């Protein structure tokens, strides 16, 4: 048995080294000379095309905004799927949370966390950050609530349906902005060509659809991750699961 395990490890090592060697062979060491192709266009055209200061955000939400719709949909799918996996189970209150001091401290902290998250979301076109990052920060509030106030605290106050609504509305908002672009600008997710104001670069209201899309993604991701977390908490607390089958 032991020999078998060691052989298995040896084989695994050999396989991974061989694959790594092939990958190393394929690496083109010299980075392409200067920046060419679409990247050059992104760097030099972002200000003119979109009015956003963050080139990465401009790529994510304007030039290649369709990817982002897909990416947000992956999260949406995961959330929906995990909720489906752990469907139809009421979860029970298991703990009463930590001490009073921690609870008060947390209560003071929550508005600031939310503020910080919102700023990451709405300033996504100006500085590093954006809907995904802000949404994730927002969802930490749920985790904190669960840890500090006990697992049933938030579910008792914020209905899962509300989160569901926020999540879907965010997704719909994204699609709707895209469709507006289609109607007025001739192509899905058209930004300034469809009449969205480009604004002054560096100001909060700039970049046309980019902040709007950031907000949509923020709604989707924040509510989604929160639902995801709670779905998993539910199963951990559920005692009614049947025993393992004979296999």
């Amino acid at each position: 048995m032991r020999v078998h395990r060691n052989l298995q490890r040896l084989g695994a090592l050999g396989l991974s080294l061989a694959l790594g060697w092939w990958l190393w062979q394929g690496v083109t060491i010299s980075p392409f000379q200067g920046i060419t192709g679409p990247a050059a266009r992104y760097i030099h055209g972002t200000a003119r095309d979109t009015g956003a200061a963050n080139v990465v955000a401009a790529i994510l939400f304007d030039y290649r905004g369709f990817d982002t719709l897909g990416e947000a949909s992956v999260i949406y799918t995961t959330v929906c799927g995990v909720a489906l996996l752990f469907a139809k189970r009421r979860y029970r209150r298991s703990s009463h949370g930590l001490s009073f001091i921690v609870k008060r401290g947390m209560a003071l902290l929550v508005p600031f966390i939310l503020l910080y998250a919102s700023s990451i979301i709405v300033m996504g076109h100006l500085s590093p950050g954006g809907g995904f990052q802000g949404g994730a920060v927002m969802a930490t509030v749920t985790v904190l609530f669960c840890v500090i106030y006990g697992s049933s605290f938030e579910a008792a106050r914020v209905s899962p349906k509300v989160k569901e609504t926020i999540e879907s509305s965010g997704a719909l908002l994204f699609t709707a902005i895209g469709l507006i672009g289609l109607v007025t600008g001739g192509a899905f997710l058209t930004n300034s060509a469809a009449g969205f104001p480009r604004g002054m670069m560096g100001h909060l209201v700039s970049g046309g659809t980019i902040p709007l899309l950031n907000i949509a993604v923020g709604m989707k991701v924040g509510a989604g991750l929160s639902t995801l977390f709670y779905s998993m908490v539910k199963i951990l607390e559920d005692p009614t699961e049947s025993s393992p089958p004979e296999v």
Partner: protein
Amino acid sequence: MNPVLAIVAPFLAAFTIPLFFVFRKKWVGTAVILFGVLSALTALFVAAGGEAVTVMGGWQPEVGIALVVDSLTTAFLILASLGFSASLSAAAETFGYGPWRFYVLFFLSWAATNGIILTGDLFNLFVFFEIFSVAAYLVVAYPPRSWQAIEAGFKYLIFGTVGALFLLIGIAYAFMATGQLNMAILARVLPRAPEATLSVVIGCLVVGLFIKSGTVPGHFWLPDAHSSAQTPVSALLSGVFVKVSLYALIRLAFLLFGSADDRVFFVLLLFGTVTLCLGHLMAFQQEDIKRLLAYSTVAQVGTIVIAIGCASSGGVTAAVYHAFNHMAAKMGLFLVSGVLAEDRASRDIAQMGGLFRHRPLFVLAFCLFAASIAGIPPLNGFMSKWFLLVAAAERGALIPAAAVVAGTVLSAAYYLRPITAFFGPAETEPPHHRPHPVTGAIVALLALLCLVLALAPYIGPLKEGLLAVGRDTVNGARYIERVLR
């Protein structure tokens, strides 16, 4: 009609159904049906609209993400909308509208499927593949109460993630070497990349697609997933999901890999042949009817991969034609065997004696579909296999051709086992007789589709369409020119 609508319509459905659930629970069923019709019609209109290129955000193809409609796209859009509509109707009858999240996943996978088919951008392809796969893992695992479903879903998840990783590596290397992502531009600049890089790009993309499509080294998830999933999902998996990955393989093989001489096509022929043989030999040994059908799907995937490996317009025609035939027949087989297995409360072939007297029409439909898959002349499966044989003979691929023919013999043999069981004597009468009006109607339509497809080589427009798919797909320069015009 703008091609993007074919992607947006199912997305809208997926995003709106939760709102219906929250605010108007009673309307969920109506919404699902309406959105299903809407999505299918949109896709068909896009397909009917003919060749088109549109770029998201109104940019140039190099800068934005291009969606391209050409004849191959058209063919697969039609295939996807037929398959999804059939599966949706069957699911609505089987599950009802209670598990609304299932329908959300269903529409997400539909949107992703259309996205994979339409997109002209390599990274976008990866993103849509991810949505598609995540939704697929989950619909396989539905309902989460059965341990088989969970295990199959998990295995599919691990395999699918590894496949996605390989796709990502391939895309990363292609990007590192050229700085481009648009497939048309890549088709131009990729051949100039260093040979070693090119081999990694092609190898990783091919291997990733092998997993997604269930070609041999990556086929292990397929029988588990197909046999453990619910009937409408199995039908969908076999009928559409596998085909979508094969679509990507066709597209990339002729656009990006065609430049890398014949090695790629040799790899496809080799692995296609192995897949074919393994699928048939494993199906031959199965006792569980859905597992038998699943391994038969593996074998048919091998057939299509061989057809792609023929690297000719005839081969692509055969691949697309066979994809359609397999979709029609295998969906029908899964639906019928679902009904029959439910009657016996068992999927064991030995338990299925005497069902002909119980459900004569379903059993007859099963015979038709099985004959079609096995390639009994003059049904559609035979026609496409004949196209394939001629294409393989033209390329001089004798061993794959021999394997296809031998596979036909084997599949006839293993499909006759359930059929003889159905016509054999019954040990016990089935306890209940639940009517399946919708499933029955779908099965009838699929049978009709099989017959129409059998006549396809004799119907002028259909034949022309099939040949045009082959011609256009092989001609990469035409695609490039149309996108970059």
